[in-house]
């Protein structure tokens, strides 16, 4: 063995040793998906019958961060939506439960046999799902403002293929806010349709810190559509949260936003911004600190915005301008 062999072996061992068990993201081994026919034969028969005679919609429930949509209740037309929850496949621990919904009057893309393709009920403008009243859709916060834009992008051949990369999309989204000091991907948990991407920075000692974990989903109509671009729908908040107004709620032109924070000598600022780039002026500043201490601030909706937009709150100033941030997806109330 010569010197190069030794150096190569040592370098690889040293790099491998930097990956330790406790640093790995929690994950579970894959498990078999329960078979519908085996667990509930009558239900499988009902599903087959429904596929022929009625519209069948395979819907993945938007596990909206703070508000789960009601299921199993009458929809707007009065038709009853029955549901069967099938546990998520273990290929991804982040995939939300799958809900098989059978509606007697649901829309959807009817095929030649009268059946419909499985559909996700995530974005109001992308989904043909008929949903119960009070259902909370994902709010498209960016980079796409509407499903029409997604279709145009796909029709163009998918230029800017970074839209298909959850990490790059998360980075792009944050930079669009002007948070140029947050370019580091600190964590990533990505499944076929959902992604949770940590975005952060390095402190002067070189240690990485997460400023927020962005939640992204595919802007898609059918589950597992890997050609669909990623869309940011919110953040997974922990020590800095944005809780009011609630996710998906309709807000007036000026409203109060707030949540909780754990920290010392914090200085919270906020603004609003939609996927088209319309934004309000930043509101400065609310001093805060303590353990799970409440905070609130008055913000304005983006002037030209008519649909969904993000409330963006951030704090910083200790090491760099932006150190933690949180998003809440809301929509403009109709006048």
């Amino acid at each position: 063995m010569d010197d190069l062999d030794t150096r190569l072996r040592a370098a690889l061992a040293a790099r491998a040793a930097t990956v330790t068990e406790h640093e790995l993201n929690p994950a579970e081994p894959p498990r078999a998906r329960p078979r519908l026919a085996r667990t509930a034969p009558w239900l499988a028969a009902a599903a087959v019958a429904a596929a022929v005679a009625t519209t069948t919609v395979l819907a993945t429930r938007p596990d909206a961060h703070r508000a789960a949509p009601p299921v199993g209740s009458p929809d707007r037309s009065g038709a009853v939506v029955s549901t069967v929850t099938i546990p998520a496949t273990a290929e991804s621990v982040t995939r939300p439960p799958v809900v098989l919904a059978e509606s007697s009057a649901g829309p959807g893309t009817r095929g030649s046999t009268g059946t419909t393709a499985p559909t996700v009920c995530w974005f109001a403008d992308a989904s043909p799902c008929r949903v119960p009243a009070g259902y909370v859709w994902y709010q498209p916060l960016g980079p796409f403002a509407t499903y029409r834009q997604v279709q145009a992008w796909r029709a163009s051949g998918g230029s800017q293929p970074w839209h298909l990369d959850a990490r790059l999309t998360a980075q792009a989204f944050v930079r669009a806010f002007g948070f140029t000091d947050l370019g580091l991907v600190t964590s990533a948990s990505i499944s076929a349709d959902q992604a949770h991407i940590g975005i952060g920075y390095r402190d002067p000692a070189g240690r990485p810190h997460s400023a927020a974990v962005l939640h992204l989903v595919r802007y898609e109509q059918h589950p597992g559509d890997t050609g669909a671009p990623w869309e940011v729908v919110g953040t997974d908040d922990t020590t800095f949260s944005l809780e009011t107004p609630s996710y998906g709620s309709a807000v007036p032109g000026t409203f109060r936003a707030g949540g909780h924070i754990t920290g010392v000598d914090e200085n919270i600022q906020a603004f609003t911004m939609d996927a088209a780039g319309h934004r309000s002026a930043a509101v400065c500043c609310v001093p805060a600190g303590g353990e799970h201490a409440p905070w609130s601030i008055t913000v304005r909706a983006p002037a030209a915005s008519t649909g969904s937009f993000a409330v963006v709150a951030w704090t910083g100033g200790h090491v760099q301008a932006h150190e933690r941030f949180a998003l809440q997806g809301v929509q403009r109330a109709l006048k």
Partner: protein
Amino acid sequence: MATGSPRDATRRGGVGVGAATGADAGVAALFHAHRLALVRLAVLLVDDRETAEDVVQDAFAALHRRWGGLASEDAALAYLRTCVVNGSRSVLRRRRTVRTKGRPPWDEQTAPADEPVLLAADHRAVLAALGRLAHRQREVLVLRYWADLSEAEIAATLGISAGAVKSTASRARDALAALLAEEGF
């Protein structure tokens, strides 16, 4: 030891159509025993831990689907290794495509979160040079010098002949030495 592995299933009289629970238990046992090592292998091929974890998770998902067709635990491990190498190669290929065809203009190259800032300078230089080799050359060197696989095992993992492994390793070492010399290491 009944671990639910393909080997155990063979003893019970057939791996191929084992019940789902058998696949669950067998894959889970391998997952808990080998996940870390496989993530390390993937890190050495794709550089960042998050991507490596994704690649390994995909490999175990593929193993679960293929459980019935594997004859032994060794075969399962070999299959996982192959999946990790192929998955890593796909990641690198996608990265190259993205970089070629377009990135967001505001996007900068960012170091992975687990960048080995504490590694010795020589280790960093060797790893950087390794990253500049062709994918196949890098794979052969990692499998040989980190995973300690034989030429035959590397050949099986990569789906190439033992002779190709030998020649690729030789060329990879030469290229690595040249790159290190270029950098003054």
